[in-house]
């Protein structure tokens, strides 16, 4: 098959350039992080990892991610369904609104939450009076993280669902299926890769978010320190090795995407075998 850019020379140059740039901009930072983390040897690395406060930060980070990802998953799916399956006035505006988190500087994102739920905020007085702690506790961190990561799932799904159209869903309706059945049995299998991808990105961002979280977390060691905050604090405190140890952990979490991607590839391969075996 003849395709553009298939000439071996072009191919080699492009792949070469891509690999060099990837190495420079992505691989090298990764290596640098691990290099600094392992600077004082594996023992120290391990010791840093098993530090009580690092473990607490890992726990909190996982908690935040576990709370954030499902919420954004549900929201993203509903929004994508709404935007791609129905026509209504204001659709495009809605689509733009979900990009707000990209447009807001993370620090400002944290700030607006602080101004809303903080002691002097609109809702803060009431919350304070009822002794409900949102800011400087995990709910605030979760809220800020939800804000920062909410576009990813919808962004992944919308183009795909638009391209796929609603025909199979309509077929399912004519066969009497309920909304949930349609989604579970017809739509979900078609979008699962994109969904998966959205979840990976959401997860990556939720795990790594610093700016917004730092504003609302209060940075209490062992309590409201997420892993990125922990990294920052260790770094500020001249514990470079400790900081990069935690950072390397975050990088590993990102590279979990690698594993999941491999899983995705396997899934695809199986599906492709099924669907095209003829």
């Amino acid at each position, binding site marked *: 098959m003849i395709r553009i850019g298939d000439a071996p020379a072009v191919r080699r140059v492009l792949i070469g350039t891509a690999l060099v740039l990837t190495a420079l901009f992505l691989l090298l930072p990764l290596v640098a992080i691990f290099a600094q983390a392992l600077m004082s040897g594996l023992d120290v690395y391990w010791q840093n990892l098993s530090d009580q406060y690092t473990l607490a930060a890992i726990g909190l980070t996982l908690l935040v991610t576990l709370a954030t990802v499902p919420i954004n998953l549900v929201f993203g799916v509903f929004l994508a369904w709404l935007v791609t399956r129905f026509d209504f006035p204001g659709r495009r505006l809605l689509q733009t609104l979900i990009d707000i988190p990209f447009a807001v500087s993370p620090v400002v994102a944290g700030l607006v939450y*602080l101004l809303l739920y*903080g002691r002097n905020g609109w809702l803060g007085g009431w919350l304070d009076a009822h002794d409900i702690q949102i800011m*400087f506790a995990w709910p605030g961190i979760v809220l800020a993280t939800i804000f920062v990561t909410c576009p990813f799932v919808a962004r992944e799904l919308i183009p795909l669902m638009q391209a796929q159209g609603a025909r199979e869903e309509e077929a399912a309706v004519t066969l009497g299926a309920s909304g949930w059945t349609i989604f579970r049995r017809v739509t979900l299998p078609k979008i699962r890769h994109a969904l998966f991808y959205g979840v990976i990105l959401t997860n990556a961002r939720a795990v790594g978010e610093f700016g917004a979280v730092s504003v609302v977390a209060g940075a209490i060691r062992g309590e409201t320190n997420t892993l990125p905050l922990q990294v920052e604090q260790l770094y500020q405190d*001249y514990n470079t090795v400790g900081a990069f140890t935690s950072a390397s952990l975050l990088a590993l979490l990102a590279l979990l995407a690698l594993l999941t991607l491999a899983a995705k590839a396997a899934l695809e391969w199986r599906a492709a075998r099924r669907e095209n075996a003829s």
Partner: protein
Amino acid sequence: QDERELLNSSYDIARELFAAINPKFIDWWQQQHDETVSVKQSHGGSSTQARSIMQGLRADVVTFNQVTDVNVLADAGLVAKDWQQQYPNHASPYYSTTAFLVRKGNPKHIENWDDLARDDVSLVFPNPKTSGNGRYTYLAAWAYADREFDGDKSKIEDYMKTFLGNVEVFDTGGRGATTTFVERGIGDVLITFESEVNNIRNEYGKDDYEVVVPPVSILAEFPVAVVDEYAERNGNEDLAKGYLDYLYTPEAQRLLADFNYRVNDESVAAEFSDRFPKTELLRVEDVFGSWPDAMETHFASGGELDQLQRR
């Protein structure tokens, strides 16, 4: 019954310091009151910390590196107005000053503030706009110039302009500036708290750098206060007060000195006298009237600093 928890909100580079102090305090409290308590730490830029507290971070005590940030809390009614009178030495259990870190052998022969305004010297210190550390540096330089030029404003400003113009990189915080100076190899002089030198040496080795303490510099106080409102709510008033009292005990003072902070306890100071060169330290209040005045005149938007950096 759960044990009581005290939350100490502090500046960002004090994590190790308080990690060392807290267990000792817990023992001390245990001995005195037969009660087991625990202490939680929160660290960040002290303005950020103050802001968090105002917005509801329920810290019982603050141990900051900036008088102004405690003042903000006092203005907000969270801290007693007369907090500086509640503990000795303006409620500052330890202090430090601004010093110079130069490269091994002091190749540029930096001895005093006037050397920093030389053409061939480049400086690194954090941004006075974002960092208390940077603010002290600025004030120290100004105080020096004020004395040197006998209050001649135009000469002071000329000096300050050159001084600021020599800055190679403005990081947002002390740690960033240190990294820039040490790891990136930028600048001839890093201006920072004398106390940080300890950290730097620990991290990067003792031999590659030298400390120069100028004959005259600014007194950097590390104010502490009880956040009355929250301490009350948390039922920690006695504990909070006890925590701050503890910082003035010889035991704590020794620890602080060991972390390279200067202390007022005379016996401890004597013990560590070889570590801390004698130098004349000026109080901000003496040179600039008061902290609020200094802030207003120099650091507010459109203030002296902005004017000096204008081009």
